[in-house]
């Protein structure tokens, strides 16, 4: 790892002041540290967000669950409030990676990184999340732009993610046996007037499967999507799974998720 200056600001303002074109925000370090160690990224300044109290914690209202950016996956998984309000979200967090990753990795890091096989982005999409940054509020469907790409500008800090509480929801994941990231993850959320089926792992970026969402919006039952064949032309094909297999998993897990709701 190349040497860098380490900063541990006490508030968001100070953190954003420290940011430059050669700086990085450090959250759980689960992605950022390995990439620095492998020499894939080098920074002059590393700005640790973990000491900023305001960025951590879980708030639940009647309509929304708001999770601070540096809240760890393990905290979300164990939160009684989240388990009650959106059990699917707690379940998702509890199945991320492994225990070590869950005890360090954060929601802010996850969505800012926007790994095509990360779990949280699918929850953001399906639960009509609003991403609060130090500068603005961004709707989830405008936040995830592409592979490892988000709407965040340089120096912009995610402060919290606000999820809409659905009537029902479930998350189903086919883990990569090596890393345990999602080969495919499907988040199904039934809201009052719509159903969202968000898919991660299958393509270069998380997306809402419009076809599945539409079918389920008019009939929220697994039979409504039984036997549906999805177009796999844009799906990822790599050594872990072919596009054909991923397409099968998306429709299968969508069905399983509906059944689990």
């Amino acid at each position, binding site marked *: *790892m*190349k*040497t860098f200056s380490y900063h541990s600001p006490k508030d968001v303002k100070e953190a954003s002041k420290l940011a430059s074109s050669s700086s990085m925000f450090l959250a759980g370090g689960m992605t950022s540290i390995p990439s620095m160690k*492998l020499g894939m990224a080098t920074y002059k300044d590393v700005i640790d967000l973990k000491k900023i109290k305001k960025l951590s914690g879980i708030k639940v209202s009647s309509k929304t669950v708001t999770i601070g950016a540096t809240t760890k996956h393990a905290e979300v998984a164990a939160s009684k409030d989240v388990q009650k309000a959106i059990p699917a979200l707690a379940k998702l967090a509890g199945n991320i990676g*492994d225990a070590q990753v869950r005890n360090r990795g954060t929601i802010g890091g996850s969505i800012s990184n926007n790994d095509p096989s990360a779990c949280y982005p699918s929850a953001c999409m399906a639960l009509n999340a609003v991403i609060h940054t130090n500068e603005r509020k961004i709707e989830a469907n405008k936040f995830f732009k592409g592979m490892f790409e988000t709407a965040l500008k340089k120096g912009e800090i995610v402060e919290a993610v606000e999820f809409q509480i659905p009537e029902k929801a479930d998350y189903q994941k*086919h883990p990569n*046996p*090596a*890393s345990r*990231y999602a080969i495919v993850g499907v988040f199904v959320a039934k809201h009052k007037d719509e159903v969202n089926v968000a898919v991660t792992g299958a393509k270069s970026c998380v997306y809402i499967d419009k076809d599945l969402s539409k079918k389920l919006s008019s009939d929220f039952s697994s039979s409504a999507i039984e036997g549906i064949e999805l177009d796999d032309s844009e799906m990822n094909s790599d*050594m*872990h*799974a*072919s596009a054909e*297999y991923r397409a*099968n*998993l998306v429709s*299968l897990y969508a069905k399983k998720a509906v059944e689990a709701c």
Partner: protein
Amino acid sequence: MASLVGSRVERKEDKKFLTGKGRYTADINIANQTYAIFVRSPHARAQIKKVDTSKALKSSGVVSVLTGKEIAEDKIGGLIAGWAIRSEDGSEMKVPNNPPLANEFANFVGEPIAVVFAESLDEAKAAAEKVEVDYKVLKAVVDPAKAMDSEPIHKDVDKNLCYDWLLGDRKAVDEAFAKADKIIKVDLINNRLVPNAMEPRACVVDYNTATEEITLYTTSQNPHLSRLVMSAFGNVAPENKLRVVAPDVGGGFGSKINVYNEEIVCSWASKKIERPIKWVAERTESFLTDTHGRDHVTHAELAVTKDGKFLGFKNETIANLGAYARVFGTVTPTYLFGPCATGVYVIPAAYSNVKAVYTNTAPVDAYRGAGRPEATYTIERLVEKAAMELGIDKTEIRMKNFPSQFPFKQTLVHTVDSGDYVAGLEKAKQMADYAGFEARRKKSEANGKLRGIGVSSYFEACGIAPSAAVMSLGCGVGLWESAEVRFNPTGQISVFTGSHSHGQSHDTTFAQIAADELGVPMENIDVVHGDTDKSTFGMGTYGSRSLTVGGIAIVNACKKIIAKGKRVAAKMLEVSPDEIEFKDGEFVALKSNKKKTIGEIAFACYVPGQRDEMKSPIPEGDEPGLIESAFYDPPNFSFPAGSHICEVEIDPDTGNVKVEKYTAVDDFGRIVNPNIVEGQVHGGLAQGIGQALYENTQYDETGQLMTASYMDYTMPRADNFPEFNLGFTCTHATSNPLGVKGCGEAGAIASPPTVMNAVIDALGGQEITMPATAEKVWKACKAMKKSNAKAA
């Protein structure tokens, strides 16, 4: 006194390892040390046109930068192949030069080209990036099946072929096949594996400018062998000026047998730069450069009668050696593979033909089981398929072909001293509730799942020795083992062994054996290993040989101690030595019942006299002190055997395979410590099931390793396994006084075919290659649905 051999004494090592007090190579630091970083080839095959170190030399903190040019100038030898294998046509194998730093050609991604030594690790890394290597990239040869038709990657190695080896009789096999009712055929791929020792390789070298002695701390399974190779072939230093210490070593599985480039380079360089050197591999370097395992492409056939008798066996295999032939690289796919490929069966005619090829991939060498997992996979897939095609129960067909008596002269090489294969399989059937399987299959079916059961019966030749046998087959050294038992004057004992423990718990097992032999508490015994300046010369630990060879050397040294003790006791008790009996730590004069404890004898040996009387307890012709050593070269290999049964359940929608039940019944002869043996079986099973379902080393067509981290290479985890159901049968080995057999590799040998047979059973007999990943299985399930629909 109750025997310690056979009891579950707690491991002496536990406290050290569980409280983080182990001392591994990376824990060792020497004042004034420099840090080494290797510049490695990013290409699988390239000509090295120029290495420019000028910028790196000017980089901050750099002490020295060395390349293949300097190492060649100093006449430092290359890495070696330890076994010479002859081709069927009588020609010797073709072995390319393997310099420690590649000078002219790089032949796999990760091959070291140059090395940087700097005051800090960061400075070494920064400087390594400044070494400029001018490569001419060449087309890589990656696929072993195509290697013989590709451009040769080494000078003087035609068709990339190291050897084309034959064991057995083609004519006899043809005749047997002509008589068969049916020929069963399989095409198999034995997937390449990365050994993945928990501790990455490392070395710390300290050169003393005054004594001119090099001390090399290293992650080795066999420090004496490393010293011998570095001295005799590497020309690094004479053996008396080279001390090799392998302190605590965190797993080897065969990958730490070889003396590697880095150890040779750092030892040589430490003398050159007159500074201590530290090098610790990063995980990526382990993936790229540790020797890999397996990697066979096999076509095999079994000739059978319609009632399931085996008549003949043939095996045509292409073995991938990787870029170079290493220590056990050439023997693993020949004598460790071919003879065992006829398995536990009486097969009148057989041959194994192996073509070993070079490719632009990491060198392949021994990995837990080394050749025998490949052999067992070959025969046990055939046998299972034969059962299926003939409609005979899979256990019955095996029983039918087991030998009826021991010693069992196996078709190709070995005479198996002891065993009872029927008892093993019967016990496994019972423990696995084989009879109840159909009911469980129906239950799974009712839940929309596919359930399969797989069996494999194996034997293996391990305890790698005897010297005359292995040397006759091409081994460059003898494979005996040695020990020294040293009493202190006050009665505690140091047991020095040439075996090396890197997870095998020798401190405990060897202490149990010695304690029984000497009649002293285990606490009085310390086992010393891993340091060429301390322990006796040893060939090291691999091939499940430590107990059956090294352990017996300890027994024999103890017997010499007792013999001397008897002479001393006889003199002290004023009787003749044959009137002394040794029992439970006491020398007893049979007639008078007068006694001396072994502690008293040890004391007398070191303090041989008394006040006021000119009287020595040491008999004439004996010397003071109580130290004895022994070298042991057994009369035969060791032949553990057993039967394993696995049940899997497959979800046809996802292709996920779940190992529901796993039963292993093994015959390891007499068991010294059941805890430790069960641990060895568990570890072997985890690696073998890992091979069957998860692990796979993949190179792309340019020779880049795609599975170079745990993000992509699936190491199995605890939640991938059920609780293992272990059982033992015991027939004592007749080839050693303890009656013990090797146990370290069995789990990894038996389990891949057991699991695959179960998966294939669930898939209605459809062949599928290892690892049986979810997607492959899903595709097979789809094909099955289609063909079922057609049939209906």
